[in-house]
């Protein structure tokens, strides 16, 4: 899917660390993600894989003084924003990229009416528009009644709050919408509704989408391409069906197996053995080696190089060196 215009978001070999009181956590190690115009991209991974950190790094929202980009590059529409100061970020955020978080009750200001919060977004990015009218427009867009504007966040249901968050993000008129676990805090019915909403918005607003989730099913139905993350690394990427059905990386395979919830021959569910990765060290080898069923000596010693095919399906695994696709 090549495009002559710059990708809206490009992260190359990004390394992010969190430093609290001397204890350093390497949240992202050599992560690379690209989203171009009109695409719907997904990021899959368990908790601790670095997916949320990636989303925050994309908007310069890493915690002050604690989170830092130590290596790599982030570009938004061709502009290198890796070293942006908070001031520069203030001016940039919203228009090219907007983000929607999960568990919206804590993500909305509890003492401000919902309409005011949406209005804030509008006024910031559309100073000449009639904020009130646009707010109503946005509420309709996310299928909420205009009367919701006068309510406070705690008076709304989870699904409604998530829609409000969407409205706030859309008020920025973003080219790319990042959705960090958009349905995790919701019940199954509401999940489907929100996803349908996202899909229709994408089409009607010609907006790119970056969906972050641990739910592979969600990603399968909504994304053209997908990245798989483990221990802060992007271990596999490609078209969704390539990655999920013809997985190249053992971790992806394990994830897919586990998500199917089918029993194995011995009657047990498929799982990935071992413990969650320790992020206090920078990995000089494959991060998955301790849990991989096909681990080889070289896996423990060196970082596997990135290998890919012409369809854009790639992974970082020593198994691929043997000539396997």
């Amino acid at each position, binding site marked *: 899917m090549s495009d002559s215009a710059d990708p809206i978001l490009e992260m190359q070999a990004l390394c992010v660390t969190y430093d609290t009181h001397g204890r350093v956590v390497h949240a992202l190690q050599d992560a690379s993600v690209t989203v171009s115009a009109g695409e719907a991209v997904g990021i899959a991974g368990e908790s601790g894989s670095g997916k949320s950190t990636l989303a925050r790094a994309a908007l310069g929202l890493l915690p002050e003084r604690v989170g830092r980009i130590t290596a790599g590059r982030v570009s938004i529409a061709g502009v290198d924003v890796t070293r942006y100061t908070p001031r520069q970020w203030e001016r*940039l955020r919203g228009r090219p990229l907007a983000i929607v978080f999960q568990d919206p009750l804590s993500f*909305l*200001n509890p003492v401000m009416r919902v309409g005011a919060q949406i209005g*804030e977004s509008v006024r910031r990015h559309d100073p000449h528009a009639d904020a009130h009218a646009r707010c109503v427009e946005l509420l309709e867009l996310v299928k909420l009644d205009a009367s919701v504007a006068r309510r406070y966040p705690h008076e709304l249901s989870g699904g409604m709050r998530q829609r409000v968050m969407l409205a706030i*993000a859309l008020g920025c008129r973003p080219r790319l919408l990042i959705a960090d676990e958009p349905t995790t805090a919701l019940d199954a019915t509401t999940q489907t509704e929100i996803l349908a909403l996202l899909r229709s918005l994408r089409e009607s607003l010609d907006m790119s989408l970056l969906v972050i989730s641990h739910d592979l099913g969600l990603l399968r139905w909504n994304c053209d391409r997908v990245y798989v993350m483990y221990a802060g690394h992007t271990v596999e990427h490609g078209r969704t069906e390539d990655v999920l059905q013809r997985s190249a990386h053992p971790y992806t395979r394990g994830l897919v197996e586990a998500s199917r919830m089918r029993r194995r021959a011995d009657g047990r569910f498929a799982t990935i053995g071992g413990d969650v990765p320790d992020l206090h060290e920078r990995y000089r080898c494959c991060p998955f080696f301790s849990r991989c069923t096909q681990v080889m000596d070289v896996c423990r010693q060196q970082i596997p190089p990135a290998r890919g095919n012409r369809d854009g399906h790639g992974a970082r695994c020593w198994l691929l060196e043997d000539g396997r696709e």
Partner: protein
Amino acid sequence: MARYLRSRLLWACVMVVGIVIVGFLITHILPGDPVDVLVGDFPAPPDYVTQVRHEFGLDQPLSTQLGLYVANLARGNLGFSFLNRQPVLELILQRAGATLLLMVPALILASVLGVMIAVRAARHAGRGVDSVLTGISLVGYSVPVFWLAQILIVVFAVKLAWLPAQGMFSIRTPGTGLGVVADYAKHWVLPGACITVYYLAVVARVARSSMLEMLHQDFVLTARAKGLSERAVLWRHVLRNSLIPVITVIGYNFGYSLTGAILTETVFAWPGLGSLFITSISNRDYPVLAGIFLLAAVAVVIANLITDLLYAAADPRVRVAAPAAA
């Protein structure tokens, strides 16, 4: 909201009743002849003593006594101060003005400065500015106010002779107009400073920790993600939320202002309720002591009620269900 306020109002009334009972117990249950408490140690004419005994029914069962006590209170009869030759209620009302003139400006100043200091400190949390400001508020919180008063007097009133050391007005005060105000202001500076220092520290501590907590809340992330400027994030999102607990503290401060005034008024001979309280002790003018106790406690109840109102106005979540404890 109305239901919440009604339940608070009801409870406030119950508490006032409780305070009255405590006041009654103090004067009647404690060892010694209750008459002394009601009349005071000051020599009183014997017919008055008999009259008091009769009025308060001291020869009757406790429950009747309580009834009579309450009835007297309702009539505004808090006893008579022989030392001051006035009914206690009148005396208290007279002196209350001076205390208000001392405390209210001090509390307002302390609240405003306290919040300003807290905002500064919270924004630069963990760094030099924060340590200095937090240190200042810690000192203000730990200094014995009567010692501070002494130091201020020695430095400013004696050594430098810039400001008066005692009283609210000079002996030769201009009768009316700007001159009076200036005279009052000059006298206010030192005692006002003492009071402000302490309450500033209290407000700053609460405001700072509240702000620090708010700065790490998720909704701040959302606000930033919208592309809002740091100023907008601070004022519209962080402050609006962090000031809510500060309202409670400021309300408490106003409520307890009578207590806070006592020591300062004594050292500076400020003619308010605080110094009245102290002189009444040394003169064993018990009716006045009991009256001031009642007033102080009721003031707290009223202040708490108003604070609850303001809190409910500020935080919409509270209006939905009455919390078990505000």
